[in-house]
């Protein structure tokens, strides 16, 4: 079933991709290929392969149970928050929080997770910012 849904979605993607390519402006230069032809080819290849998956799917994939799925959503959310808040919070604070949550969700006790967070954050900061001289955002701590 998963393969069929995936095939269907990819077929939609191929259609949308090819449809969008119609509107590209070939410009005034004489270019026998133009901006649309290569996308047409790709859309065609994807449509054929997606159609095959739709019609002849492999054995079903094993998806994680809802509990694990929720965990993964949490981790992705934390990573997104890290990306968004890194510059404002600063590397050290953002990393402590993120590593703690990740380590905790990966099976460490909360205490060990917090210690890991602090350790990883300071070690990576020392290595990157001080030793390798790749500046990391200071954020809140820099403003104090």
């Amino acid at each position: 079933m998963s393969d069929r849904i995936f095939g269907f979605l990819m077929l939609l993607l191929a259609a949308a991709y090819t449809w969008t390519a119609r509107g590209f402006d070939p410009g005034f230069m004489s270019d026998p290929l133009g901006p649309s032809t290569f996308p047409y080819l790709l859309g065609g290849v994807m449509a054929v392969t997606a159609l095959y998956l739709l019609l002849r799917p492999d054995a079903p994939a094993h998806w994680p149970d809802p509990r694990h799925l929720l965990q993964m959503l949490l981790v992705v959310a934390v990573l997104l928050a890290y990306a968004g808040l890194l510059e404002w919070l600063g590397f050290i604070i953002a990393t402590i929080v993120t590593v703690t949550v990740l380590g905790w969700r990966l099976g460490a006790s909360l205490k060990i997770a917090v210690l890991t967070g602090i350790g990883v954050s300071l070690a990576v900061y020392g290595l990157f910012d001080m030793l390798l001289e790749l500046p990391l955002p200071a954020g809140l701590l820099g403003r104090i």
Partner: protein
Amino acid sequence: METLNYLMQGFEVALTPLNLGLALVGAFLGTIIGALPGLGPSNGVAILIPLAFSLRLPPASALIMLTSVYYGAMYGGRISSILLNIPGDEPALMTTLDGYPMAKQGKGGEALAISAVSSFVGGLIATFGLLLFAPLLAKFALFFGPAEYFVLFVLAFTTIGGISSKNQFKSLLAAALGLMISTIGLDPATGEPRYTLNHMELFEGINFLVAIVGLFAISEILFFLEESHAGKVTKVTVNKFKIKWAEMFKLTGTTLRSSVIGFIAGVLPGAGASLGSFMAYTVEKRLVDQEGTFGSGDPRGVAAPEAGNNAAAGGALVPMLTLGVPGSGTTAVLLAMLMSMNITPGPLLFKNHPDVVWGLIAALFIGNVMLLILNLPLVGLFAKLLMVPSHVLMPIVAIVGLIGIYSISHSPFDLFVMIAFGVGGWLLRKLEVPLVPVILGILLGQLMEDNLRRALNISNGDWSTLWGSPLCWGLWVMALGGLVMPFFLGKFFRAKALEPEPEIAD
């Protein structure tokens, strides 16, 4: 003679204190990365590319460090396959067959030593092969015009799944997906924005480093979360051992034969290291296994796949450097590394950047020796790394990946894109859609379109130019063969290879 001169120049590049130091650091880091559970050569190199980029190392130095990491990771990966029966990547699968039984008999140390020595021989022979054949192929490749290159890229995509590919349609779909991603941004010929959704950030296209680190590192973390080996720590010890050189000597024939087989498998498109180790093991089993001891801890069963797979890794560098067409996941990542330094591999690489090519080849020799020296005495220490729990390791992988990308562009947008690629990569791996063709598509898309454009420009828009020369014909035949062969051979190979787990690394 010419080659020898170049090689001497290469050694001059590689033997500077900075580059020697980088090779040592790379070999050490690489072994650690390979030994750590859940990190293979591809992931390891992928995570470190952004760093090499932001540190603004000169191309030759960066290349030397990262190839040392690559070789080191291959060495380190053997530790978990032998001691724990967990292959770190697909080629290591064959090593578990005799390596793990040896470890169970209390000869894990010997197995690791054999694996180190035969890897060394395999790598050494492959480097000699690279030295001999790469310049020849590069000269030959000068005859390639744009049409030939376009067909060559097609060939790369139809064979990347490998002979043991499970579902060719999924490989092709993955390739199309990667190529589609590469078309995002301004069209280089007309300046027309394509698929940018009017976002300024997308006008320059998706940075392939962002995509690769996302696909490899972030998706790996999601995989670990799902499996959730909460708090499980494995105790690993290596027995004390002394290398018995007399016994090593008995393996000479096996190691040499396997190295040659592996090198050939590595050079062939679509074969790669998995096939190298598989063929070496099978051939050796046919030839020397009279008593039927293969599979129950025969030292020759460790030496054969190890020599084969390291030789294949070296062989895979031949098409990658001379044609710019990688044949496996790790060589695709090495290609990404070169491209991030604005070096496009291909026949002209040997003319325009001889310091890079020959420095690299010299570095392979040096790295190999260093790894052997590091690995024989320190293997017990590296084995301890298997006990690093995933709740420490995986957050580090995430942070280093994110910070590496951040330090290139200082743009949170890239980080969002990277996480999106991670989630997408996880979904694809779940559906058993291989990630390597996606990466190859992102890497080669622009070159492919560019060559098609130039071919059509030369022929005034006549598409028949794509099958206009005998060389094109040959490449088309090989491409079709690569596409169709797995349907016939796939079942046979998979039955023999005991159904490997879906792995992104090759």
